[in-house]
C-alpha cells in the first residue's frame, strides 16, 4: 500500500473511530463507516491539512469511499 493510502486510512480510523480492518478501499464513509454529512466535511478538511492539498467543494462531494480519497490525493500529488 502506498504511503498516501496508509495515511488516508489512519485519518479515517482516527476521525470516524472505526476499526482499521473495516477501512477497505471500497468502504463508503457514510454507508459502511458510520459517518454523517458533517463527518465527511471534517474528513475532507483533515485530508487537505495532512496532504497540503486543496479539495474544492465539487471534488469533495465525489469523494465517498476510501479509494476515492486516495485516488484524488494521489492525482493531486502527481500533478
Amino acid at each position, binding site marked *: 500500500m502506498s504511503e498516501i493510502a496508509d495515511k488516508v486510512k489512519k485519518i479515517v480510523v482516527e*476521525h470516524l*473511530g472505526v476499526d482499521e480492518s473495516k477501512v477497505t478501499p471500497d468502504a463508503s464513509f457514510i454507508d459502511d463507516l458510520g459517518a454523517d454529512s*458533517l463527518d465527511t*466535511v*471534517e474528513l475532507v*478538511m483533515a485530508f*487537505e*491539512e495532512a496532504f497540503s492539498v486543496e479539495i474544492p467543494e465539487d471534488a469533495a462531494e465525489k469523494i465517498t469511499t476510501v479509494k476515492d480519497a486516495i485516488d484524488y490525493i494521489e492525482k493531486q500529488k502527481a500533478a
Partner: protein
Amino acid sequence: MQSTGSMSGQRRVVVTGMGMVSPLGLGVERNWSRIVAGENGFGRISSFDASDLPAQVAGEVPAGPTESGGLTLSDWVPVKDQKKMDRFIHLGLVAATEAVEDSGWKPESEEDRCRTGVMIGAGIGGLQTIYEASVTVKEGRARRLSPFFIPSALINLVSGHVSIKYGFKGPNHSVVTACATGVHAIGDAARMIMLGDADVMVAGGAEAAVCPLGIAGFCSAKALSTHFNDTPEKASRPWDRDRDGFVMGEGAGIVVLEEYEHAKARGAKIYAEVIGYGMSGDAHHITAPAAGHEGAFRAMQNAVRSAGLTTADIQYVNAHGTSTMADDLELDAVERLFGDDARKLAMSSTKSATGHLLGAAGAVEAIYSILAIRDNVAPPTLNLDNPSRESVIDRVAHTAQERKIDTILSNSFGFGGTNASIILRGV
C-alpha cells in the same frame, strides 16, 4: 404548582431521577456524602495556565477512574463524538445519563417517547470552543473551522444530545438565564408537565466555563475571589466578612421530572414533589441586585404563594449565596420574607463547597436540597468564620446539622437581574 383553590385538580410533578457531576466528583451520592462531611472541590486552576490572572482558583471536575468519582470521558461519550461537543455538553451528558438510569424510565412505545422531553440549559455554553474557533479564524484559517464548531458551542445541544441518545421526542428546549438557568429549567419543565405538554421531562443545567475567557471575563467584572490563590479551600466563604468574590465551578445537575400518577403507575421511586416556583426581574442593573434584593424577595414570595404555603412551612433554604457582597442582600430578603419564621430556619450555601456552577448551580443545589429532605440534614456553609452581619437565621456554619426537613426553598439569581426560586417537598 398551586396546591390550593381552583387549581387543586391539576397535574402534580415529582422528581424520580437525579444525576450530578461537580468539583466534588461524579455521582449524586458521592457528592452528597462529601457535602455533608464538609469537604470541598477547590484547587488552583489546572486546565490552563492562569498565572497572569488575578483569580487562580476554581472548582474543576476531577479527572480519574469512574469508580473513584473521577471523569473518564470515554466511559460516557464515544471517542469519535467527543470532539463534536464542548465540555459543558460532556458534563451534561454524564449527569443526564445518571439521572435517566436512576429514574428507570425507558420509554418503549412511540407515544411514550413523544411524551418525554428535555430541558437542559447553560449560562454561557461552549465558551472554550468559541475561543478556539476564534483563534483559527484570526490566524486566517477560517476554511479550516470544524463543521462541528456551531453544534459544539450551542447551549441547547445538551438537550439535543440527550434526546438523540435516549429517543426522547417530546418538547426539546433549553433555558439561558445566566446563573438562574438551573432553577428556571426545572421550574419551566415542571410547568410543561403540569400543562400537559409532556409526562416526563429531563431538566437541569450544565456548565464548563473554567477556561481563559470565562475566568478572565468574570475577573474583569470584579466578580471572582482573588485573595485566596494560595488557600483555595478558603476562597468560597458566603456571608463571611472576608469574602471577596465567587469561585468558579463547573459541572452539571440533571433531574427527571415526572407527572405524579405516571410515576406511581410504574412504581418509580419518588424523591420529592415540585410544589412551588416563582420568578422575577430586578429591572435595576446588569450585574448588581437592588437594595434589599427586592427582586429575590419577590421571586421567593411568588414561589411561596404558588405552593399555597406560608413561610412557616419551610425548614431549609439553599441560598444563592455566591460569596460576594450580594450575600447579605439575599439575607435581607429572606429575613424580610420569613419574618418571625426566620428564627426556626436553616439556610446554607453549598457553593462554599462546590463553587459557583453558573448555569448548573440551581439544578445541582436543587438536588442537594432534595437529599436534605431525604436525610433530614442541612448541609453546611463552609468558611463562615465571622459573619459580616448577624442574623436570627441559622446559616449552618462549618458542619452539617440534623434537622427535620420536609420542605425546602432554593434560590438562583442571574446577571441581567433575573431571579428564580423553587420549592420542593418530600412525598
